[in-house]
């Protein structure tokens, strides 16, 4: 080691371990660990890698269904989509790096999640991203939005994976802690799926991809700590992404995966070489020995500690069949990528690290994994929110509608998605904005995937249990609204500091809600990621947590992709409202944007109604009875109708609301489990719905280019659009 450092409890604390955890390290090792060993323990036992605060609760989530091939525990979830194909997908956060350096933070977030998917043998075919930013009024928000959007585009566009969907919210709670959650979906043949469990004592351990530099050392521990002023001094940990190398890595890995050379493969993500080596050997129940002299290095004089903890991007670790090593080398050389045999599997059950003739680490893998801390942290169950009292509309319906469609959370995202290549690959059937979920065809088949990300953090803040269930239900509904069959979920659980009992209480309640929704909707969770400590330390010493944000990434399948419907209003149709309306305004966008209040309980989530209504809608789409469909979410019925009009330019004339419900509650209430659909004959369609026990009523008739309110007030599609499209350009190009 270059610098003589004393390994002791205080250094362990600096590395993010508690005194008790350090004690555990001492007892496992039976001696004082070396610096490199302490580094390995600290990253493996960080929140990011060990899930120590969340693991107990994640176990309760439903993860199984007949179509689930691999659930949580692999690099990404794998589901059967039919005809011998599998969809492989996962979502992952890059929140902290994106605050420090928005462009590179977001770009490397995309790069990282792509690797989790192609490491399993899938060709990535779509990216999505779920983003949360601070208040638009905060001057730094603009810089962060700009960097994050450029970063996502810069990486995704270059690697040639279309970015087809996502979501964006603004709220002051994210001022010092934006959320960047990236999701990748890939396709593989079911018989060509690659796992990470190493096998075969003596088999070579091979390193491919970019060289190792001093990037992001302790990135995993950084992303497990809350933010304070010191964040700035942690800046040298920023990693720079190289999407060009990633593209070569994808092609080279897929080419190698077409042979029988690979025994096991794992990307180097958070905690780099350490976590990939430990996980591969650990899962396979073997030992692993690495010789760091063989690691391709970008900088001179790197220490073992630095190499083991580096988070340099675009690297993979593989265990190969010894007789195929040369073949693999040739493939990687063709793609001009570094290829190095850096070790082999052993029968010791230890990870042994050698560098410059020195033994740098020798750790037994079993206790490193099995004795990793798991905490049952104290929690306080969230209080039920007070019901919203009576509220009154201060403005006319048309004025409120125009204000809502122009508001930050509802305004057009075209400025954003127009910077993402959404067509590369030639399989994008519905681009962003065209349907409730993006639709991508599976090349060489008629299969289609429906992809979406959803979460309504303000609901989760008011009532985490309902909010968690709502996020799952909305993803399910968005997939259903295209005609697709929802299959499975990936999640990204973004919360504050789990050491605070109220935050832990939010986390537990949100997971309960999610779990219940997944169960009732038969929509298992097959992969995901947890991001805790999303808090900002304020100058006065207090900390501000983000809104609880369990982002849900949903995936559905269409057996015949041409059966998918979009949300654009179709001409000369009856517009029908599916689902019951009480007019729930608590925590609605209307309440926040028009009255400036964030109050009340979120809308009720009735999972049985959700399922009944959704199953009916999907069946009718599949039967060719529905020509357009849009789920009703933020902003209620009127905003949904306006969105349908803006999407196609075709107008509609709306009927009067149900009597007994105040107009603002009818039009802007956010009651769940509802859809607006275009059908040929509304009367008979409603009768059919009634037979299925699904509430439905005629809502209007489409045609022309105007949205006509029951009062006769007319708003042209063009006027709606110009209100809708102002926000982003005005914020960003000022």
């Amino acid at each position, binding site marked *: 080691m270059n610098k003589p450092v004393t390994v002791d409890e205080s250094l362990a604390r600096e590395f993010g371990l508690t005194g008790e955890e350090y004690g555990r390290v001492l007892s496992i090792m039976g001696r004082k660990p070396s610096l490199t060993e302490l580094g390995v323990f600290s990253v493996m036992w960080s929140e990011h890698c060990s899930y120590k605060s969340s693991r107990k609760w994640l176990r309760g989530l439903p993860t199984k269904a007949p179509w689930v091939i691999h659930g949580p525990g692999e690099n990404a979830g794998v589901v059967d989509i039919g005809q011998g194909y599998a969809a492989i997908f996962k979502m992952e956060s890059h929140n902290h790096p994106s605050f420090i350096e928005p462009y590179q933070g977001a770009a490397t977030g995309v790069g990282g999640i792509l690797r989790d998917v192609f490491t399993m043998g899938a060709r990535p075919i779509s990216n999505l991203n779920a983003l949360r930013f601070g208040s638009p009024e905060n001057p730094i928000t603009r810089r962060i939005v700009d960097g994050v959007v*450029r970063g996502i*585009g*810069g990486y995704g*566009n*270059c*690697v*040639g994976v279309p970015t087809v969907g996502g979501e964006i919210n603004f709220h002051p709670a994210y001022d010092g802690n934006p959320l960047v959650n990236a999701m990748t979906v890939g396709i593989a043949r079911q018989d060509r799926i690659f796992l990470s469990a190493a096998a075969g004592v003596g088999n070579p351990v091979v390193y491919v991809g970019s060289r190792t530099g001093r990037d992001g050392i302790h990135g995993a521990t950084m992303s497990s700590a809350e933010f304070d002023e010191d964040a700035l001094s942690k800046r040298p940990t920023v990693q720079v992404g*190289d*999407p*060009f*190398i990633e*593209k*070569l890595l994808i092609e080279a890995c897929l080419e190698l995966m077409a042979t029988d050379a690979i025994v096991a493969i794992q990307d180097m993500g958070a905690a780099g070489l350490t976590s990939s080596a430990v996980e591969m050997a650990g899962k396979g129940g073997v030992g692993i020995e690495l010789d760091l002299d063989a690691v391709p290095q970008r900088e001179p004089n790197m220490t073992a500690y630095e190499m083991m903890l580096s988070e340099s991007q675009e690297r993979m670790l593989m265990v190969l069949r010894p007789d195929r090593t040369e073949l693999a080398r040739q493939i990687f050389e*063709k*793609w*001009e990528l570094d290829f190095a045999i850096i070790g082999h599997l052993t029968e010791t059950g230890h990870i042994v690290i050698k560098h410059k003739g020195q033994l740098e680490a020798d750790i037994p893998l079993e206790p490193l994994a099995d004795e990793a801390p798991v905490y049952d942290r104290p929690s306080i169950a969230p209080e039920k929110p007070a019901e919203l009292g009576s509220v009154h509309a201060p403005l006319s319906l048309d004025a409120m509608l125009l204000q809502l469609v122009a508001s930050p959370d509802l305004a057009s995202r075209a400025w954003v*998605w*127009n*910077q*993402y*290549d*959404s*067509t*590369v*690959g*030639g*399989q*994008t*059937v519905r*681009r962003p904005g065209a349907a409730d979920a993006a639709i991508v*065809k599976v*090349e060489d088949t008629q299969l289609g995937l429906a992809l979406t990300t959803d979460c309504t953090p303000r609901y989760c803040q008011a009532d985490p249990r309902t909010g968690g269930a709502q996020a799952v239900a909305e993803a399910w509904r968005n997939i259903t609204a295209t005609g697709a069959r929802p299959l499975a979920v990936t999640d990204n659980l973004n919360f504050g500091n789990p050491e605070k009992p109220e935050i832990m209480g939010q986390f537990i309640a949100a997971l309960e809600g999610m779990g219940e929704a997944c169960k009732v909707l038969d929509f298992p969770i097959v992969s995901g990621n947890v991001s805790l400590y999303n808090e900002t330390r304020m100058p006065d010493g207090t900390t501000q947590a983000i809104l609880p944000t369990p982002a849900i990434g949903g995936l559905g399948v269409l057996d015949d*992709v*041409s059966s998918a419907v979009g949300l654009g209003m179709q001409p000369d149709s009856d517009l029908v409202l599916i689902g019951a309306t009480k007019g729930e305004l608590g925590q609605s966008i209307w309440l926040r944007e028009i009255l400036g209040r964030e109050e009340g309980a979120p809308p009720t989530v009735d999972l049985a109604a959700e399922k009944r209504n959704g199953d009916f809608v999907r069946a009718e789409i599949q039967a060719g009875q529905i020509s357009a469909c849009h789920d009703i979410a933020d902003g209620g019925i009127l905003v949904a109708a306006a969105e349908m009009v803006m999407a196609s330019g075709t107008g509609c004339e709306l009927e009067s609301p149900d009597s007994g419900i105040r107009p603002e509650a009818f039009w802007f209430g956010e009651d769940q489990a509802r859809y607006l659909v275009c059908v040929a004959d509304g009367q008979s369609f409603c009768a059919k719905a009634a037979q299925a026990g699904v509430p439905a009523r005629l809502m209007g008739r489409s045609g022309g280019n105007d949205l006509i309110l029951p009062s006769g007030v007319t708003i042209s599609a063009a006027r709606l659009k110009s209100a809708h499209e102002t926000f982003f350009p005005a914020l960003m*190009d000022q």
Partner: protein
Amino acid sequence: MKAAIVVFPGTNRERDMAIALRRVTGQAPRMIWHHETDLSGVDLVVLPGGFSYGDYLRCGAMAAHSPIMGAVRDFAAKGGHILGVCNGFQILTESNLLPGALLRNADLRFLSQDCHLRVEVEGTPFTRRWKKGDIFRTPLAHGDGNYTADAQTLAVLEGEGRVAFRYADAKGRVCADDRTSNPNGSVNSIAGVLSENKRICGMMPHPEDLVDPLMGGEDGLPLFEGLVEALVR
């Protein structure tokens, strides 16, 4: 028509192009890795879109020096037909097989959207299925599509009828200063140009991504059908 698609490190729209070509020829085009140098038996060489060498330094600059480009030059010299789309267009200008250069988009952002093109010259292998003045829709996706050339070069291009396509609005109106119809700021709204013999065409938008009603239309198809017609042997 025997088509070949050149693949450089970082090329990413070769599959889209292969789909379009297969659609019109009924056979899979040959995929040529940039290290190869043999183009024998090929009627059409396509340089597809993507980010060859990550678009580092300048888009297309490093690919222009790939081994295959020597063969492409010879192919051109013998009167071969070449289509370069997006990054392929940039590679053709960097190789001096087409005049001018492609600068960063005027508003400095990557653009991914549909645009309308007006066909400016008819009867070439690339435009024979259209009439002069026809308008078609096509996606574009690039950060550096802002075509420029010096005044003299422009005069030659315009004078010799070598501007193949111009950005226009849906009605065919061309206005170079208007970012809604000329999104990247190209001089004279130029979206595609031709070589002197009109056998080499470079264009920024992606007609290959609009050849299937499922993906939103077949507006790009005539380009490929025209090529098959012109190059049938």
